[in-house]
């Protein structure tokens, strides 16, 4: 996959114009790559600068001194609930992902594999919810969650997001293609449906589960509208809400703000670097994005 898919016919000597074309290709790639990296560079640069460096009249591409002491300053600043909001984001990300995977994969399995008279009708009822964009239901969902008394609570942040029709649909499509022979072997060995699911189906589907988990975690971590709606107390802010509150309203040190932003994307950059295989697979398989 790495070498064979250039559009050159292999074995044919490369002409001068082809070589010039390939130089042009790489030049474009490098220039675009640099453009894509500039915002990351600005994040790090501003994180370790002083406010005067950031807002100085003469814009310097490289700061003169790197201020590492900005990092303890951020976490000790009582005005910026950074540690708390990072923790909230982590809890919402992990529990939300685990819960959604559990609930939706079970439903997807039932819809794909368990014979039931009304399964088709139920499947259409699930499909119908895909038509309603989740972002639009925030008004009615807020009404419901507030009548449950869940505003500014972790369950208000997590629970409504667990029941994703789209994730259940993806799991159903995946389980339809799962080899039946494996399940039949388990049946012969005396396992019931529940046992077959946990001991045969899930262990043989870790790739798919990982891909959906990575994407769901990223979606949860970066979610903004729902946490903004539901997180009315500072104690329930996720990191996205905290950052937004500082940019749109309060005055805060600019370098602190940029450092907070850098810290907030760190977990996802790590996920990208270490789990990129699952991520690319997942995106390519499903084309989903929150």
């Amino acid at each position, binding site marked *: 996959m790495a070498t064979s898919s250039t559009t050159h016919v292999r074995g044919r000597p490369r002409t001068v114009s082809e070589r010039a074309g390939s130089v042009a290709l790489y030049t474009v790639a490098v220039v675009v790559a640099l453009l894509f990296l500039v915002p990351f560079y600005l994040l790090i640069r501003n994180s370790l600068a002083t406010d005067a460096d950031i807002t100085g009249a003469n814009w310097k591409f490289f700061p003169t001194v790197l201020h590492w002491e900005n990092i303890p300053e951020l976490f000790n600043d009582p005005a910026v609930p950074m540690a708390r909001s990072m923790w909230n984001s982590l809890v919402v990300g992990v529990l939300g992902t685990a819960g959604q995977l559990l609930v939706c994969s079970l439903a997807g399995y039932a819809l794909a594999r368990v014979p039931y008279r009304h399964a088709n009708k139920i499947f259409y009822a699930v499909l119908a919810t895909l038509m309603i964009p989740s972002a639009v239901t925030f008004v*009615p969902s807020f009404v419901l969650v507030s009548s449950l008394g869940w505003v500014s609570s972790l369950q208000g942040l997590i629970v409504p997001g667990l029941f994703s029709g789209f994730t259940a649909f993806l799991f159903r499509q995946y389980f339809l293609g799962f080899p039946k022979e494996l399940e039949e072997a388990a049946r012969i060995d005396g396992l019931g449906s529940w046992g077959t699911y946990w001991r045969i189906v899930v262990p043989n589907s870790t790739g798919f589960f990982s891909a959906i988990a990575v994407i769901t975690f990223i979606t949860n971590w970066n979610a903004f509208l729902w946490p903004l709606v539901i997180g009315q107390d500072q104690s329930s802010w996720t990191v996205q809400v905290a950052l937004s509150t500082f*940019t749109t309203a309060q005055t805060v040190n600019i370098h602190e703000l940029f450092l907070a932003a850098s810290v907030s994307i760190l977990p996802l950059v790590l996920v990208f670097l270490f789990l990129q295989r699952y991520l690319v697979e997942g995106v390519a398989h499903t084309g989903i994005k929150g």
Partner: protein
Amino acid sequence: MTTTTTGGARPGATAPPGPAAKAKAKARHDGHGVRGSTRTFWLFAGPFLAGLLLFVYVPVGWSFYLSLFQAQNTVAPTKFVGLDNYADILTEGPFTDSLWTFTLFALIVVPLTYVLALALALLVHRISVARAFFRSVFFIPTACSYVVASMVWKLSIFNGVRFGLANTVLGWFGIEPIAWIGTVSPPWYWMVLVTLRLWLQLGFYMILFLAALQQIPKELYEAAWTDGARPGWQTFRHITLPQLRTTSVAVVLLMLIAAYQAFDEFYNLLPNTPYARPPLVYLYYTALGQGQDFGHGSAGALVLSALITMVTLLQGRIFGFGKADR
């Protein structure tokens, strides 16, 4: 490794079981009979279906009910007003303005994203050295949230004063600093909104195109070359593009839905500005801003849901979306 995903069921191996197959499956189902399998179904799907009912169907139904009432500062309806809420939002201006903002935004963002994401995919596809590196660089902005990107765009790149990066670069060419966000005319804020979304989204759609490009059989290109077609525009036009049709349709639909749900960057870049409010920002301020008007908010949410459903279905009709055509 097929990208069916957003489409409906495909024929062949993954098709839902027909009646005959289902009866057979029922007959041999692990000895518990039909009743056992019904119980299994509810054991597996019950929690999900209960949640779907409570957190999707009930809110949507409640929203419809609320939209027929006056409900300000309370989530309980106070006075029945019939369709007045709908009439209000459709005639008063801010809501219809928000629909135009969305339309304009989508008209700019969707074609640009399509062309540039495809171009990036072709670029990465043709590169043989350090391909994984370039793919990662183009993909990694997806890790950023709109909130963080808005911050960089607003405070560091498109800052209205001289120390913003964009204005610094313009300064090298002797161009005066531009107030990127603060003014309505000229509407430079579109530049800020569009470039931000491009940076965040291109890598994601590039991956979708890359996956599709890798599935095009190489024999097609080889056959075309033997027939005298030249590598480049001709093969792209007559082989690559038609082979990408299914992916293209899915990508355009995803982009439309994503553009329509735009909220984060508008809210963070242009807080409290009456111009350039897409529908979700309008809804947010109506339902949860001062006055908490849940009656009008619910009506707006339902009109929007109806619109996006119509667009989805219409696009399905036009492009035969969901049909397997490869």
